[in-house]
């Protein structure tokens, strides 16, 4: 048994680099597979054909779009401050999210869930809404002399840090979510 364990451990160590294949780039991976006797071109052609079939058989389901976070909130009898309170955000953050001025990938999943719960809708719809292009400020669009420009999207946590209206308690709770965020 000890010999088997020893052999197993040595095997594991000797082939660790294969287990970390996901850290290699495509050129390296192709080189490794070719050297290991695989017909990579044929294999990749077959895979891409199968992938096309998989995509055709499993299309992205059409989702009903929501008109806006504040539009739904209003329908539910919530104003922007009420929605901010229910979700532990601030009026500024809600407004930025509503106008999609926050980079969607930086918005923590928990915030999307809280918004979905408060607005009585699906998380996917919230995510889909946040992923659309940033919205123009309605006021700016008719007051400015120049053509209205879309503001650049901001990182969610940057927005939390720079938001002077949010209470310290809420700020800490929101910033604590940053540690749980996957690397971007």
């Amino acid at each position, binding site marked *: *048994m000890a*010999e*088997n364990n*020893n*052999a*197993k451990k*040595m*095997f*594991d*160590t*000797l*082939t*660790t*680099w*294969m*287990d970390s*294949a*996901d850290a*290699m*780039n*495509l050129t*390296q*991976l*192709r*080189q*490794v*597979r*070719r*050297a*290991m*006797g*695989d*017909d*990579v071109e044929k*294999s*990749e052609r077959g*895979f*891409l054909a*199968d*992938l096309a079939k*998989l*995509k055709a*058989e*499993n*299309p*992205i*389901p059409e*989702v009903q779009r929501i008109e806006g976070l504040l539009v739904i909130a209003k329908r539910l009898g919530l104003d922007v401050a009420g929605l901010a309170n229910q979700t532990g955000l601030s009026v500024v953050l809600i407004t930025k999210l509503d106008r999609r001025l926050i980079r969607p*990938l930086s918005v923590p*999943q928990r915030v999307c869930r809280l918004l979905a719960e408060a607005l009585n809708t699906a998380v*996917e719809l919230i*995510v889909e809404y946040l992923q659309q292009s940033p919205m123009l400020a309605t006021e700016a669009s008719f007051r400015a002399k120049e053509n209205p420009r879309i503001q650049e999207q901001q990182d969610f946590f940057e927005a939390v840090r720079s938001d002077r209206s949010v209470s310290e308690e809420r700020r800490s709770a929101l910033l604590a979510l940053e540690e749980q965020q*996957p*690397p971007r």
Partner: protein
Amino acid sequence: MDKVDPETLRLLHGYTDEEWLTYFNALVTIAKRECKKRYWRTGRGGLLPQGHSPETIAKEAITRLFSGKRTWNQEEYPGPSPIGILRATVESIVGDLVRSEDHKRYAALAGHSDDRESSDATKEADKLVQKAIGKHLVQPALLQDHLYEIKDVIRRIRVTIGDRPDLVAYFDLYMQDLKRSEIAQRLGVSLDRVDELRKQFIERALDVYREFFDAPQPANDKEARLARN
């Protein structure tokens, strides 16, 4: 028909062909290792049941994610890359294949269901191998052979990279199962240099690994050798 999470489908449709090819080739390489590990230890070469190969296993893992047979739990496998969940699926498929085949081969080892996809399939497969060894269903001589074979591979790698003392030093530390940062510290080099040494070591040692994995010689190698002769 399993229900597929729309967000998963959106992500899966969003990757470029190049990203998919990277995931696919990585999964085939990971599957090769998984298969060899299991079957080498039971003394059964690289033969896989049900006509499977590392390539079909990689494809099956991707199919399961698309079809919803395998669910992508974002809390367990966070981030936009599917490689974590796909790797776990590959390990699970290989574990199930070993288990089902061991069922057929070793009727004495009952009590393992084949039709479920357990998260601890790997551990169960390992237990089966241990049980088989315990019951002398695996020839004891094989254990000695395994050690000998591994030691021979290590010796041959050392010979192959022998003209490069930096690679030999890297390989010795690599075989001590040290982390990248530990290797950098021991060698007194940067992490980037360790990555470069690792890349060069793999390139140089691939021939030895190919033979260890009983893989055929690449076509262009064969042609080159024939031309030389």
